[in-house]
């Protein structure tokens, strides 16, 4: 348990995979960290529709969740999570936690919220 606590203590960062305005907002809030270490260069990915491919998003998702050990929460826009819905839904690790945030053009949709889906499944809907 103590090793688990130590591992948890290292996880102190937030990461973000979002569109430009959302990432700007999150950087303003102080989420961004840049370092010279290989594999931990930045903790945010700006997804530009048309330029960023689904593979790049998948790669970033894998890096932030399994690759790095210093991320506690991953913030991802809901419409970008839809691109990699299979990965997000099958994600079972406790850490990092994944939170879907709304974007400017795609407001929050409770139908796509994975936690509410779980509750609905429990109550047999």
């Amino acid at each position, binding site marked *: 348990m103590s090793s688990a606590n130590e591992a948890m203590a290292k996880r*102190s*960062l937030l990461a973000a995979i979002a569109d430009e305005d959302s990432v700007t907002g999150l950087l303003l*809030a*102080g989420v961004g960290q840049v370092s010279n270490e290989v594999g931990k260069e930045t903790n945010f990915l700006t997804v530009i529709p048309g330029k960023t491919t689904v593979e790049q998003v998948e790669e970033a998702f894998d890096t932030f969740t399994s690759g790095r050990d210093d991320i506690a929460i991953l913030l991802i826009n809901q419409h970008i999570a839809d691109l990699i819905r299979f990965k997000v839904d099958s994600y079972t690790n406790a850490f990092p936690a994944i*939170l879907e945030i709304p974007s400017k053009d795609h407001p929050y949709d409770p139908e796509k919220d994975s936690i509410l889906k779980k509750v609905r499944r*429990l109550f047999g809907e």
Partner: protein
Amino acid sequence: MTTDQEPQLQKIVSALEDISIKSNDQQKEITNSDAAIIEIPHDIDSEFSEIDAKTIELVELVAKYEQLVNDDNRLNFINGFLNLSRANYNTGTISKRFGADFYDLRPHTACVSLQYKKDTFELVDLLEFQRAKTASEKALKKAKDDKKAITEEKEYRDEDSKESESETTFDEKYHLTKDSKSTALKSNGGHEDNQVLKKRGGNNAINSSEKKSSGTKEIDLESEKQTEKEIKVRDPIYQFGALAPYQLKQAQNYFSSALKESVRVVNIQNRISKLVNEIEILQKENISSTAQV
């Protein structure tokens, strides 16, 4: 314009300029009176089975979650985006949008970090810590300077009186200086304690890798100069230019509160997920026990 009219004018200006959406504008589905219907008298609690109690807890949590996610969190994000767009509009040109071109890609530390205590995430604001610490350091330095001035004055006075009096004045002087030293030490020690407390808050964010990359060393509490070796966090609004419009500052405030709410949302999500798992296990147990009977 008189000085009385100025605060009133400021109020009017801020009311007109504030374009943010308030929660009163939104339709509230869950009112406080509705929530009261779900209340259950406490004496009946003991009659509920474990699974029922957990289900009730789950339903309450889901109600709280939905309210948080639909009202507060959404509003913070909406207002943040709104103010960001306003700031972009105010800069005039399309090419100067506050966006990816402004990001500071030089190595720097994040201003917020997370601590995980008792199954919940807690957001730690390093920028606030830093500001509070610099403010307390300044206050302490000022107090020390004042003390120094007072003791020097007293010494000067004592020296004057010593010329005409006996040894008791020397002891007085000695006590005085000793007292001033001890209080200085106490205040120093207190300051160092404060440093330790604040460092504990800050240490969680400082990864060992970051220390290596920025070339800082382990904190040595014995010298005061170690404050210069700390990793400094910079307010991220500065990366958007020195004269950023005030709407950008407003957007920053909204996004900061959105981030705090998001952490609360994650905590509730974790609890809901845990409860759902526990209820599923209990359901399976019930099914298997009734099947045996």
